[in-house]
């Protein structure tokens, strides 16, 4: 089932008098339970692609749909409900990792007891139960990524979006992070990730490169054209 669709997406930034094209005609479909990895050098547009895919930034052209709904105008809702955009930078370095994971749940109105339970479960799921009582500032890079993922997983997303999850991660810890992302797909969660380190492409369901804003992938992985379906006038969802 298609979870996320990007169709003909373009993104431009103004830099003084100049306009920089960061994404050109990007089309991509991510199915439920699929792990898609995008490789690109610095400045290729990876982070922009992920922010647009997560609905954090609106495209200048094209459409982004999550579960059939266009993201522009629904970004806030969808981010909370279905898309987990993983920010690796953990604010509140003096906080315990458990608190880092719990706080967004409390902010979303979850009761303290329930939030704590869900945070503990998420840390377990992210392979970081031992980090719960450690201060965020004391975590190493791999642990930070796991806690950041736990913070997202606590909201039971259907799509996890993460930028460069293995950047700065110890060589022997790297595949543990990739295996964690892989394990999420086994639970039906789709993962869209980027990497500057091509070793991170190993084991992905779909591997793509982003070069000067253009997304490329092997032909057999290329996707059928996305057809925009319009609901007929007077259409109503059945009960």
């Amino acid at each position: 089932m298609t979870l996320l669709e990007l169709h003909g997406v373009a993104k431009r930034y103004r830099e003084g008098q100049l306009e920089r094209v960061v994404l050109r005609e990007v089309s991509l479909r991510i199915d439920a339970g699929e792990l898609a990895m995008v490789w690109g050098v610095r400045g290729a547009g990876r982070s922009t692609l992920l922010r647009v895919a997560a609905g954090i930034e609106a495209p200048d052209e094209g459409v982004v749909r999550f579960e059939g709904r266009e993201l522009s105008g629904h970004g806030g809702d969808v981010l909370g409900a279905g898309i987990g955009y993983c920010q690796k930078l953990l604010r509140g370095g003096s906080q315990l990792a458990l608190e880092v994971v719990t706080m967004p749940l409390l902010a979303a109105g979850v009761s303290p007891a329930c939030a704590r339970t869900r945070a503990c479960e998420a840390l377990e799921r992210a392979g970081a139960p031992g980090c719960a009582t450690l201060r965020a500032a004391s975590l190493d890079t791999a642990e930070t990524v796991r806690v950041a993922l736990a913070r997202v997983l606590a909201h039971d997303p259907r799509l996890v979006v993460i930028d460069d999850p293995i950047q700065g991660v110890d060589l022997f810890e790297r595949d543990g992070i990739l295996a964690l992302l892989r394990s999420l797909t086994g639970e039906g969660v789709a993962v869209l990730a980027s990497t500057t380190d091509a070793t991170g492409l190993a084991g992905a369901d779909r591997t793509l490169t982003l070069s000067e804003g253009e997304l490329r992938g092997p032909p057999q992985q290329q996707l059928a054209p996305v057809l925009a379906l319009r609901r007929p006038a007077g259409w109503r969802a059945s009960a």
Partner: protein
Amino acid sequence: MRAERDPQSAPMQSQVNWALLGLVIERPSYAYELAQRFDRTYAGVLTLSSVSHAYTALAALRERELIEELPGTRQGRQPKPHYRATAKGLDGYGQWLVAQLDEDLRRQRLFILSLATFTRDPQTALELLARYEQACLEEARGTPIAPRTAQHTGVCAGGAPELAARLAAEESRLAVGAKLAWVEYARRELMALPGARVAAR
């Protein structure tokens, strides 16, 4: 009159012979067991046509004094002569291993020179480059990940075959990474050629 060429002085070309020498270095043994180990170790990379191929290869290694028979192992009704590597064999094997790098570089250079013949036709070069990139992405996708667990703390964690698999996978991943970075560089160079940008879009 031309001098007779000594076949033993010529470099040993057979990959099978060198691979078998590696197994003898790993653990001295007899032909049948070496053939079995060969099949397990080099499955999908090198093949022995039959067990007798192992006997032929061992004979060639012995003639070149890269291995020698272990004394006292050619006894009994069914003698199983065991072989071990000589100092010459150890040294030669090391040199052959390092020479593989030259072979890799030669193959890569051949590819690049072949691609460079299309610089007058940037569109074709870019298309070939795109296909090469796609092959790299497929290779990357097919490479397994190997998360290390608590049991991977030993010197030879998981045993030699598992360690060899991890080392091979890592080498492959790093090599693909270097190739993708090179593709990015080459694409920019080709795009800078007159007419290429129009052709590529």
